[in-house]
């Protein structure tokens, strides 16, 4: 059948196939999923000459070690990633945002993300994987998507169904900007919190907890006091919603979040900061800054233009 594949020698911490995610399924309890950092997902595809919405491999912290079997193929890695390429007779340190050609037997060793969380590996071609509701995105919680809805495992194969004919090498100079200040729009239950709680929320910093994953980012810091009710009637959630449960520690919903929740919503992260939010690693500090809806809309537009400009710079 097809002779092009990767052998997963080491799967890494949380390695999954991701793409643009799934729409129109919240009402049955299926979240959006998709690549956590959308800009880096798009750039990964562009660098290997793919259509921008094709599946890529997303990894967190420590990525996979893969050995390639087959004809030549180009790959690219985006994010802030430390990785090595092992060719037949030498090993090189890889640069992000640059395509490399793999030959039969070459290995990609993604050692770690550098003071960030997620990275992306794209191939100039297509993985042979299953789509559900138009997306390959793996949701390990409901076992939805490619790879039976499970993260990649040691020893498995990743089949490649198609390799692009055009194998041009591309490159872009890009540095991921890191941010500490996250802009937040007041939530629908903002008034549930005490004056001091609201003040702490916007003035004091929080620390990102180790218990963060694709579902949510848990924060530790000053307790946000609720003076109305620590529960609301369960209602819809969205990516970026910040809930505060009874213990006073905020949780930010991320791409694989539960679709319904019953904790008060103190705020929602502005879309412009989402890609950078997910890259803030456990132990790091994070601060919230209030932003009005109209500013958030404008800033997102500018961020999108910037993303499109970056994409068009890759020729």
């Amino acid at each position: 059948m097809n002779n092009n594949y990767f052998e997963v020698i080491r799967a890494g911490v949380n390695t999954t196939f991701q793409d643009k995610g799934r729409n129109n399924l919240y009402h049955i309890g299926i979240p959006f999923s998709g690549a956590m950092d959308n800009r880096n997902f798009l750039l990964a595809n562009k660098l290997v000459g793919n259509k921008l919405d094709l599946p890529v491999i997303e990894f967190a912290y420590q990525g996979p070690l893969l050995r390639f079997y087959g004809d030549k193929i180009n790959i690219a890695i985006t994010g802030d990633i430390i990785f090595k390429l092992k060719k037949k007779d030498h090993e090189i340190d890889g640069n992000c945002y640059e395509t490399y050609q793999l030959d039969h037997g070459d290995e990609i060793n993604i050692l770690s993300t550098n003071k960030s969380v997620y990275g992306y590996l794209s191939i100039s071609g297509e993985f042979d994987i299953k789509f559900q509701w138009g997306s390959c995105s793996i949701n390990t919680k409901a076992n939805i998507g490619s790879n039976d809805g499970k993260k990649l495992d040691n020893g498995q194969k990743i089949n490649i169904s198609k390799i692009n004919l055009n194998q041009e090498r591309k490159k872009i100079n890009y540095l991921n900007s890191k941010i500490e200040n996250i802009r937040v729009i007041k939530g629908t239950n903002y008034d549930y919190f005490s004056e001091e709680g609201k003040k702490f929320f916007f003035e004091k910093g929080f620390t990102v907890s180790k218990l963060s994953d694709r579902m949510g980012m848990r924060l530790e810091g000053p307790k946000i006091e609720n003076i109305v009710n620590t529960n609301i009637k369960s209602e819809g959630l969205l990516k970026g919603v910040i809930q505060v449960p009874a213990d006073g520690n905020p949780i930010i919903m991320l791409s694989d979040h539960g679709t319904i929740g019953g904790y008060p919503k103190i705020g929602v992260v502005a879309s412009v900061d989402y890609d950078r939010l997910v890259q803030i690693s456990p132990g790091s500090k994070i601060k919230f800054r209030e932003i009005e809806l109209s500013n958030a809309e404008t800033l997102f537009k500018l961020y999108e233009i910037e993303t499109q400009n970056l994409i068009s710079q890759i020729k």
Partner: protein
Amino acid sequence: MIKNISNLGDSALYCDFGIEVNKQINSKVIKYFHTIKKKEIKGIINLTPSYNKLIISYDLRVTNFKEIEDKIKNLEINETQKINNKKLQIPVCCDASFSLDMERLEKKLNLSRVKILENFFNKEYFCYMTGFIAGMPFLGDLDNNMRVQRLETPRVKVPKGSIGLTEQFSNIYTFESPGGWNIIGNTPLEIFDSSKEKNPNLINPGDVVIFKQITLEKYKNYNE
């Protein structure tokens, strides 16, 4: 019909239908949900109906709050439209190995096991919404003497198929998941099937569910 519309972040409309939770208000939410879904309004990417709220999320690259708000405000809703619902029987086994919180329920409700089961089974429950985890239905209303609070400390793992009770509602854990509801029994029925992309949920908002008690033997042979 919608009491108040506000923004939830920069990519969603938060439609509030009132503070109570009852069938009438929820039916309005479901009617809005069906109408908007059918219209396929440009930019809308998700709808989340719940007891008394409807959250409409949109793609900020395509549209914005004002545009979607205008469209929703000017929407004509047919009040008399019939929601296409079905009546379902769900088999539940309440063997001690499944009813993890029976003792707690007996204590909190001050009712015997026999009485609790008698109150719970063979009654019609309305599906208000589905979600949290894929396909989980939120059903109501439980009799007044059957209402308890969530566990003080939620379980890290609630077994798949578990039937939980909290306040006026009952739910079904479609996957193993963390959860704080009082577990009364377990169903062998698949409530969510991701291979059926058109309709993966067995139970949908507006449906009516009747729980039927089955023996452990019947439970074990159910999927054979």
